[in-house]
């Protein structure tokens, strides 16, 4: 194990670790907080909540986002809900059960202490959001309502119709706006971080580009917090927003921050299927739909054929000829199995020839039974906006005919390696939310991303960052004329000039799509050794072509969306390779990572705890050089890892 991989997990009983840790870490006095500067990159749930909370504490915060407003961050698109262990429905939920479900859902590849802490602060998040005016769904009594999500047998998900992410982000954004108004936070919109600046090995600032003028700016600080989200767009088609990218994380990796578990990407089972080559992104249909929707394909291949030829509609297929395959295979959890399990089951049916649309890559999500049981108005109240969205996109009315869905890339569990304090291997550089790797292991449960982003931003980072900053109270403001800033800025300019000067024959999107195809084919839902080796080779060739043949129009000193894209895709070309390398190393099937060589006779995942019970942490070793792999062993002190069983 590398000397840098010290998890800093405190000793003691699980339920006391966070309490004890908080009691012993250092704090910074109010007078000293005023002297300290913190940069926050990103304004999703993690970034906005962190920036607001740090501002409230009295630090000087600068917050950066690539959009025209902090409210655009992709957290806004989260639909279904946020988990918490409130146990309001009296169904025997508890902090321990939320912890256990999360660590089991993650297929035992996350740290016990981190996950327990997440479950512990989950209840505070709900209290906080209600106090901010988040209009969560309520019962007629005026009490908060809950619903169920995948991977859990209790109802612990709080929601605001199908727009929970939007409402939580508006809450965090409002808290941020208040701090901006009070002058504690300065907001930089339409700004993109292009490099991290280190002085004496510590994170001391960033190089950013003003996306409107093209101007390069230097920003110094005493610490940098990365909340820039995940890298799912490496696949080109994903449910991520078009501008979501892995570049900020990747610059930090190249400056020495270890990248953990890059191969753990989540494939969400319920997305609107691909319609054709002109498609730019995929749309998620919330997991909450699996509360009332039942997933099926026809039992008979002749019905499949008739469906594809449009000779019959799905509603004409009688009940006895439908294969509700999740209910059949996983009786205990049925349609509410975790995402990775549901995705693979859909792929299995489609591979066997039962896919229901022209491409053969779709299954049905049917609300017939629920509408019969509850009435259309109840379904409309619960999912109205999702049904409307589905109809706008597909031109099919889901109240009448079942939805067609197929798995798509949705979230990345991997990210920058962080210790218990959420600090990366670079002192002074923190990573929160989807940008870090910490809490979801090999697979994230639904309604847990919102929980983690806000847990990190509101309740964990504001405490742990103090422990680092307490030793910096005598350190003067960072000098942005330091040679480290000059060098970083000049490197950024060189890279941009290079991209603009290639003037080749193909567009950035052309290369991005090619990369996406390689990734989906070999590093997608099913992976194997020869495919992964092929992916690595093909990515390397493609990257060469990109750097010799891409055409980026326009200039540096203007609003140039193609240049922005080119910079992101250049990084995706490298991230994709690291994902494949990591997937190749991990010769086990675990969570979202399915190695075809490692499966049971009935196609379930085969985990290998003897050899792979570790977090892989990759260290950059230079361009064109294979990165170094470090391993953080996972010690399960309190839970006994077992085979995930959703059957009984």
């Amino acid at each position, binding site marked *: 194990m590398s000397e840098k991989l010290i998890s800093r997990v405190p000793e003691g009983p699980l339920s006391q670790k966070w309490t004890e840790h908080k009691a012993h870490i250092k704090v910074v006095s109010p007078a000293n907080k005023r002297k300290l500067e913190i940069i926050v990159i990103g304004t999703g749930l993690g970034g906005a909540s962190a920036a607001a909370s740090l501002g409230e504490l009295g630090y000087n915060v600068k917050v950066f986002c690539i959009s025209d407003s902090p*409210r655009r961050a992709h957290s806004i698109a989260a639909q279904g809900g946020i988990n918490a262990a409130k146990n309001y429905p009296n169904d025997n939920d508890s902090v321990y059960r939320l912890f256990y479900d999360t660590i089991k859902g993650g297929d035992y590849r996350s740290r016990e202490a981190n996950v327990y802490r997440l479950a512990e602060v989950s209840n505070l998040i709900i209290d906080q959001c209600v106090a*901010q005016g988040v209009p969560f769904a309520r019962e007629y009594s005026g009490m908060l309502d809950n619903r169920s999500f995948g991977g859990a047998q209790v109802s612990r998900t709080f929601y605001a119709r199908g727009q929970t992410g939007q409402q939580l982000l508006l809450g965090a954004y409002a808290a941020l706006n208040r701090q901006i108004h009070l002058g504690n936070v300065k907001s930089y*919109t339409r700004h993109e971080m292009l490099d991290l600046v280190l002085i004496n090995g510590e994170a001391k600032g960033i190089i950013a580009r003003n996306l409107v003028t093209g101007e390069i700016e230097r920003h110094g600080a005493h610490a940098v917090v990365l909340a820039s989200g995940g890298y799912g767009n490496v696949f080109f088609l994903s449910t991520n927003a078009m501008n979501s990218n892995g570049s900020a994380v990747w610059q930090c990796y190249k400056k020495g921050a270890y990248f953990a578990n890059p191969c753990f990407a989540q494939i969400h089972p319920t997305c609107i299927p691909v319609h054709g080559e002109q498609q730019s992104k995929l*749309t998620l249909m919330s997991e909450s739909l699996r509360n009332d929707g039942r997933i099926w394909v026809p039992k008979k291949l002749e019905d499949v054929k008739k469906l594809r030829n449009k000779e019959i509609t799905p509603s004409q297929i009688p009940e006895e000829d439908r294969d509700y395959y999740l209910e059949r295979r996983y009786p205990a959890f049925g349609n509410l199995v975790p995402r990775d399990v549901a995705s693979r089951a859909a792929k299995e049916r489609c591979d066997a020839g039962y896919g229901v649309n022209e491409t053969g890559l779709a299954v049905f999500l049917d609300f017939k039974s629920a509408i019969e049981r509850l009435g259309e108005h109840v379904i409309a109240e619960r999912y109205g906006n999702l049904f409307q*969205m589905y109809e706008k*996109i597909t*031109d099919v009315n889901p109240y009448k005919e079942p939805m067609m869905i197929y798995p798509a890339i949705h979230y990345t569990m991997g990210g920058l390696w962080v210790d218990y304090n959420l600090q990366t291997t670079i002192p002074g550089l923190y990573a929160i939310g989807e940008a870090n790797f910490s809490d979801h292991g090999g697979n994230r449960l639904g309604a847990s991303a919102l929980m983690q982003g806000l847990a990190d931003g509101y309740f964990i980072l504001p405490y742990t960052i103090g422990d680092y900053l307490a030793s910096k109270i005598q350190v003067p403001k960072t000098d942005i004329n330091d040679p480290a800033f000059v060098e970083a800025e000049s490197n950024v300019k060189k890279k941009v000039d290079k991209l603009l000067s290639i003037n080749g024959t193909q567009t950035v999107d052309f290369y991005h799509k090619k990369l996406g195809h390689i990734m989906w084919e070999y590093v997608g839902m099913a992976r194997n050794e020869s495919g992964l080796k092929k992916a690595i080779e093909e990515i390397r060739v493609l990257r060469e072509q990109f750097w010799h043949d891409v055409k980026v129009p*326009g200039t540096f000193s203007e609003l140039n969306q193609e240049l922005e894209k080119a910079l992101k895709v250049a990084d995706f070309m490298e991230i994709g390779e690291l994902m494949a390398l990591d997937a190749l190393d991990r010769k086990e099937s675990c969570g979202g990572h399915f190695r075809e060589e490692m499966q049971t006779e009935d196609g379930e995942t085969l985990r290998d705890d003897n050899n792979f019970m570790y977090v892989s942490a990759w260290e950059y070793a230079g361009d064109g050089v294979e990165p170094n792999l470090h391993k953080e062993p996972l010690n399960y002190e309190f839970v006994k890892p077992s085979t995930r069983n959703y059957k009984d």
Partner: protein
Amino acid sequence: MDFTLKVWRQKDAKTKGHFETYKVTNISPDTSFLEMMDILNDQLIREGSDPVAFDHDCREGICGTCSLYINGRAHGPDNEITTCQLHMRKFNDGDTITVEPWRSAAMPVIKDLIVNRNAFDQILQAGGYISVSTGGVPDANSILIPKEKAEESMDAAACIGCGACVATCKNGSAMLFISSRVSSLALLPQGRVEAANRVKAMVDKMDELGFGACTNTRACEMECPKHVSISHIARLNREFLLAKLKD
């Protein structure tokens, strides 16, 4: 499907803009409007021309980033929709389609179809929040909220801050946008405490930034992709009046 596009081109905020005409061919009816714009841009780049700049992000109708004025309507010819959710099946083969940015003095063009909506952030910064800091708040169920109130608050909170209301209003008024926040918070007990100060601060900021007044034409409500009702403007007016009376 084939289309003729008349697209607003403007180099930057200071330069005068103009329309350019382009042709796109072989577009599938299942292609979204923004995917059609991607195809146009791909074409332009290959020809050696400058692609058309436009704002977009989530492409599923929730982030509020996309902002095109299509054939004289904000977000184009469909109701309760954002530009990114609009599909080409809503047009006829051979149509000429006019694509413009939002037009409003308070939201100037930055480039081509991109406008500066910073004024919205400034209005919310002036008071669009409950002044609660992180931590030390009561249990979430300690204050009961009638279901109807919570639902109505959520109706108002559905606003995505896209600016279609401002672009549509003949007065360039931002009242629907502001009322969605004012109303959403005013309906909740947590938001009542500073309701008076909130509405005054936000309306003052709106006036300062050069938005017009509301004359109840309801155009904003018609074009709002989330169908936020002008009843929230009525609530804003009541809140504002009461707040001023108490001054």
